[in-house]
């Protein structure tokens, strides 16, 4: 006899969306070698695997992926079709193990075996002198995978509208509304060579509302900091690399939907410097082409933009450090009265402003 009673019909269902976690593991052998005494790669990997298991145990529908960002290539460690085939053959005896959740066990096996293959395929001579990691590639892979798993639904409303939401014939309803995040476990330093592609990945993540969390074990990169800052991710520089697991479980555990309940770990200063296009140098003052916005650390030779081939008018610069004769005109005219005020305010505040 619920006919006269309205209450049962309006119970709000609070549900958390399932979430996808993509771990990008920087596997640069040099960096790990230098960390060996504190945190060997194997230990770190097992910590990360445990972290993945914890993520999976949050919800039945949660999913994970692991991508290795190696010195010269980025590959999927999980899901990895080759590793899956390989472990399927050899796993008959492991079948008897009833003491581990099947999903955990299979992920662990696949990650371990593809990791082995990756490391053994790396010839020592090919590493000579490289101290970088293909972070841009790994992030691109991660984002493409996230896009796939979280369905094109999100794509259509953030993009140009791919013409109607649901597409028949594509039965991916089970993962339609997933949230996703990327965790980068980073050990190596500068990425200035990949500036543009890393930046492109960051903006793609931003548009897809995918936070990029950075777990920095060693090294320092400006751009990963910017990545976590502009995607609302968490940036954390580990004080004690050996306690990786504890950091992972307590700081990086929250999925995007839970995150807005939590106070993020204290935000540090963010370095917003950019890399110049000409010498891949990280700069804080640069010269920018007004046609294409390429950044140069010094006016390009012959005053021709190397990116867009435009003859640039360097005269506007006058002497270095002069005011660009742009915007200024207008401001002076309109805000003359205000400017005086502003200037005096600036004057008074400058002494009190601490220099970072």
């Amino acid at each position: 006899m619920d006919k006269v009673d309205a209450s049962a019909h309006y119970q709000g269902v609070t549900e958390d969306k399932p979430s996808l976690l993509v771990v990008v593991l920087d596997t640069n052998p040099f960096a790990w070698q230098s960390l060996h005494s504190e945190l060997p790669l194997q230990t770190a990997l097992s910590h990360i695997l445990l972290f993945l298991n914890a993520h999976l145990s949050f919800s039945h529908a949660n999913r994970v992926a692991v991508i290795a960002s190696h010195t010269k290539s980025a590959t999927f460690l999980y899901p990895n079709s080759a590793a899956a085939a390989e472990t399927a053959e050899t796993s008959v005896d492991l079948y008897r193990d009833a003491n581990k959740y099947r999903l955990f066990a299979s992920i662990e096996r696949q990650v371990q075996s593809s990791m082995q293959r990756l490391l053994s395929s790396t010839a020592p001579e090919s590493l000579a002198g490289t101290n970088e990691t293909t972070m841009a590639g790994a992030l691109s892979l991660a984002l493409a995978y996230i896009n796939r798993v979280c369905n094109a639904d999100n794509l259509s409303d953030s993009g140009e509208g791919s013409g109607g939401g649901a597409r028949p014939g594509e039965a991916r309803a089970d993962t339609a509304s997933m949230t996703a995040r990327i965790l980068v476990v980073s050990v190596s330093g500068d990425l200035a060579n990949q500036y543009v592609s890393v930046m492109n990945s960051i903006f793609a993540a931003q548009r897809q509302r995918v936070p990029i969390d950075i777990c920095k074990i060693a090294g320092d990169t400006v751009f990963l900091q910017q990545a976590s800052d502009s995607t609302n991710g968490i940036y954390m520089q580990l004080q004690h690399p050996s306690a990786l697991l504890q950091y992972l479980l307590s700081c990086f555990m929250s999925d995007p939907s839970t995150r807005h309940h939590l106070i993020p770990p204290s935000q540090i200063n963010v370095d917003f410097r950019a890399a110049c296009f000409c010498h891949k140098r990280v700069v804080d003052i640069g010269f920018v082409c007004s046609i294409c916005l390429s950044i140069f650390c010094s006016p390009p030779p012959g005053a021709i933009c190397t990116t867009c081939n435009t003859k640039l008018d360097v005269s506007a610069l006058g002497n270095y450090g002069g005011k660009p004769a742009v915007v200024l005109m207008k401001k002076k005219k309109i805000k003359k009265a205000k400017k005086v005020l502003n200037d005096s305010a600036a004057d008074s505040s400058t002494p009190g402003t601490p220099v970072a």
Partner: protein
Amino acid sequence: MAPSTIRGFDEYLQSLPPITFQRLYQQPATALAIFRRMLPSLAKIFVTTLLYNDRPIPLAELQSWVRTESYREREDAFSKLRRLHITQERAGNVSIDPIFKKNFRLALTGGGDHHSFGVPVDASDDRKKVSISTLDNYAANQFDCILHYMVEPSGQRQPNPGVKILLITSGLMKQSERGHQPKITQAGFSFILQEGNAQIWALLIQYLEMCESLQMEKTEVLHFLLMLGSLELGQAYSTATLTQTQIKVLADLKDYGVVYQRKSMPDRFYPTRLATTLTSDVTGLRSTAASFTQALVAAGPVAPPSEAAGESGFIIIETNYRVYAYTNNPLSIAILDLFCKLGSRFPNLVTAKLTRASIQRAIANGITADQIIDYLKVHAHPVMRKNVLILPPTVVDQIRLWQIEGERMKTTPGFLFKDFASEWDFQDTARYAEELGILAWKDSKRRLMFATRTEQIVDYLKRRGEQQAVGRKV
């Protein structure tokens, strides 16, 4: 009404004595399943944080992680953890129950010798391979049979007596007179339109209740049910590690279509999709239904044609409330009859109409408008699915309006607090209840308030009382 049955399991668990929890947490699989299914996400984060901390952490510190706006979620998380006996609090410090901690760690890392994730059997020696589609068909058949029986008790396909008894004890059906076939109750009507997984849980909870009267050990049954959720579809599992009770349960679950067992191979069983998704969360349930339907479609040629067609979507609704259902499945027709006015029937088509009277009759039977809309949406014909809005918006709105029309009151079960000692006493308690989001109504003049739960308020009053006592002494 999916949430209500899930809460059913929730409440059921919380009604268990602490000692039962101690025994439940002995099994890593159970610890994992309870963690996954029962806890709000914030509570899960607290657990993972504490999991590898050997020393207790001050409660205040944990609380300070949460934004002040999310006060309600925080309190909810903590109270859930306390009620499930996962955390212990001593002198303002929180730690995880050692048994839970040990076994949850084991679940994550693997190892130990508990066999709680099921012992797989290599089924390659089996003469006939049991494919996933076989399992899906089996599950669908069994479950359909139960639903069918509820709608049409005198039909040809009769479920096992055990199921019939369960349906009657659970109040889904009613034995009207002796010798007559039992009849479906209002609870049964609303049960039929529920999500598949919610239905299974509703049945299983009834089953658990019944176990007690059958002298079966409750924890063992629970262990077994929760273990089923962690098994893999299409994999055979051995019955060797099961206890006597659990083997008995296995036999019963076969009738519900939750597990599949071949007569020739009594030493092994196969979980069906109904089992493997038991411990999914709410969102998982939806997907289960979807993938279940898909599986049935995919298995089309194997399954009886009428059912395969019946599940894939057969209903067309026009903006003039006419309903055309391309089905000859009596169950589907019977369900349609719950909220439509049936018109004529053709060999493969039933015409019907949604009317104010038919909808209100359904609502009087305990079916909600949302259930009707969900059902129509899930079973919409592929032609309807091409539209951006699957159902015509006018029809959806009208169904809702018809529901609202009859609603004359809103009820909230809970507790009335009265006779507060002082104005301050009342205001303070009311404020606390409001922060928790459990205050339904208050009247400051008469110092009356109505809250949906008492535990936290009683706790709060006690704590406040103690503080005041201490303050007075000082």
